[in-house]
């Protein structure tokens, strides 16, 4: 198992190196971060030359990538086009993004598995039909439509009805809140809408998958045998069937984690969160774009998160299903 994890990590690092190389070239060629400076008549050529040197833009592209790569391996993500170090700006933003992504993933897993299993056990019941219908609708609805509906239609109505803001629509917290409990409650009130958004776009696919997987197991011979030898329905469903039906969903959740992080970019933009997705997007399209170091820092962190998440899922898969042997 240890050797397997090491090999997976090594493969991940190779993919990461090749991937960051390609993206670095692509992002660097997408524009000139000094275009705004150069268009400004009040800025002297000497200043522009200094900026070029500070951002290493005078060096060849391959050398710039090498500088970035060696810096990154030492934990230094370089400086942004505005001259600030990227690392110290990125870590707090990563925490903000995880504040949205982790609760959403956990809730979506519970909701997806719960609804999927209930739909399968009561196949063709009203609950099954409603859950199927909702899953289809959420599956067809883009994340930004859900986000805008929750923000501009639901939250505004709720807040007006109550008379004071209950559901916050902008930002991840109210600056200046003090006290552990107040900060927690404040964070929660800001968290509700973005988390619900991410849950709704994610759980639908998982519930369908879990339903199919549960139905497969329920029709398996060993479940019929368990029934035939007189076990209670409850025991058959939750001990014999459910435990096996939970295995395949781990892979699906792991593979979809990338989609959740992609959805978080849009969710952060709609809800004005200072997360790393929005940080990336503004570095890509903002006035001094492309801010290559910021974009690359985001891509590297997110790729590392996805690789680690997938390895963990594979390990869990191996633990759940003893037939799987990693050598």
């Amino acid at each position: 198992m240890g050797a397997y994890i090491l090999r997976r990590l090594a493969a991940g690092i190779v993919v990461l190196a090749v991937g960051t190389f390609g993206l670095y070239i692509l992002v660097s060629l997408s524009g000139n971060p000094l275009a705004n400076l150069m268009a400004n008549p009040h800025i002297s050529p000497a200043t522009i030359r200094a900026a070029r040197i500070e951002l290493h833009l005078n060096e060849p592209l391959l050398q710039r990538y090498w500088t970035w790569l060696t810096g990154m391996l030492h934990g230094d993500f370089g400086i942004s086009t505005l001259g600030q170090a990227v690392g110290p700006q990125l870590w707090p933003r990563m925490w903000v993004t995880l504040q949205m992504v982790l609760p959403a993933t956990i809730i979506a897993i519970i909701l997806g598995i719960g609804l999927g299993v209930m739909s399968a056990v009561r196949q063709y019941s009203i609950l099954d039909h409603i859950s199927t219908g909702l899953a289809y609708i959420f599956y067809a609805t883009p994340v930004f439509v859900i986000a805008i509906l929750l923000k501009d239609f639901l939250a505004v109505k709720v807040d007006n009805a109550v008379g004071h803001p209950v559901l916050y629509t902008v930002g991840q917290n109210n600056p200046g809140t003090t006290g552990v409990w107040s900060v927690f409650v404040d964070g929660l009130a800001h968290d509700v809408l973005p988390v619900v958004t991410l849950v709704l776009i994610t759980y639908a696919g998982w519930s369908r998958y879990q339903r199919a997987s549960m139905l497969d197991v329920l029709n398996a011979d060993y479940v019929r045998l368990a029934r035939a030898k007189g076990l209670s329905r409850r025991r058959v469903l939750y001990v014999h069937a459910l435990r096996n039906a939970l295995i395949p969903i781990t892979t699906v959740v792991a593979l979809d984690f990338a989609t959740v992080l992609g959805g978080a970019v849009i969710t952060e933009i709609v809800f004005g969160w200072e997360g790393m997705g929005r940080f990336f997007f503004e570095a890509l399209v903002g006035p001094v774009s492309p801010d290559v170091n910021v974009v690359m820092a985001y891509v590297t962190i997110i790729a590392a998160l996805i690789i680690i998440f997938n390895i963990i899922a594979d390990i869990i898969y191996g633990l759940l299903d003893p037939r799987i042997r990693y050598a």
Partner: protein
Amino acid sequence: MPEPPAFETSPGAMLAGSPTPLGGPVSPLGLGQPAGVPQPDADALAASQAGLTIKARSQFQMAYTRFIHHKMALIGLGVFVAILLFSTIGPLFWHYTYAQITSQFGTGPSLAHPFGTDTIGHDLFAEVMDATSTSIQTALVVAAIATGLGTLIGAAAGYYGKWADSVLMRFTDLILIVPGLVILLVLANTVSKAIGNWLWIALILSALFWTYLARLVRGVFLSLREREFIEAEHAIGASSARIILRHMIPNAIGPVIVNATLTVANAILVEAALSFLGLGIQPPQVSLGLLIAQGEGDATVLPYLFYFPAAFLIAIVLAVNFIGDGLRDALDPQQRVRA
């Protein structure tokens, strides 16, 4: 990959899936299904029960029969065709164009402007028609390119294996470690601000979407390659080209068509996301994502500016997904998710 069945059993068995779990013995013909599930093809059922003369039907006929018995797929097809006609033929009969500025600013839905007008006087009805056709044509081009390229590369990787396979799989590994949206944003950022043309957007999307099709076709080819009938072809000295074109691609065509359909739905969603973020279709062109982004600004005051494009977007994707489900049940019965 499903073995083509020798004769059609009851399509009811295909539609109803398995009977209620734990509900007694399972009949292979689906006779044990719960009451209330319609039996669409009683004749075929009776015929197969009696084991009497069964008319041979081609694979296409069987698929067609299964598809037209899939109620949601037919509704999806109807809605999709209606929206397609609305967006392509509609503008010919409508007295405003999407770029035209009328003297009505921010008026709600009325007879003159069924979907209302925005704050600078665009007729939303005309805009939605044009945006819908832009979205659909972009998605169709993406599906065509991604399916063609994906099938070709996936077939090469799956049939020849070795380095072609390694290159493809390493390339798809690259794509799996970064969210697709992020890759597309980076790609679109280099292209669409300069050339915000729908065809470019389609090319950018295809650059990502072909990998999914390629992986799928590779998988199908890997399993087909080991089957006896392919071995027999080798034994009688058939060329690789003949085996691929005459035997493997026809056997892979079911999953490919199903996934091409689902690619249309995904491409519409992703194009909308790119346009929403300002990196897709550029004004003065319109697309559904762009209209939704513009509608968001006035969402609390003029909510219909948001509702209409959003409703069209969801309706198209729902319709295409239902068509995809119907096609999966018709062409690829073993892969279907039980419905």
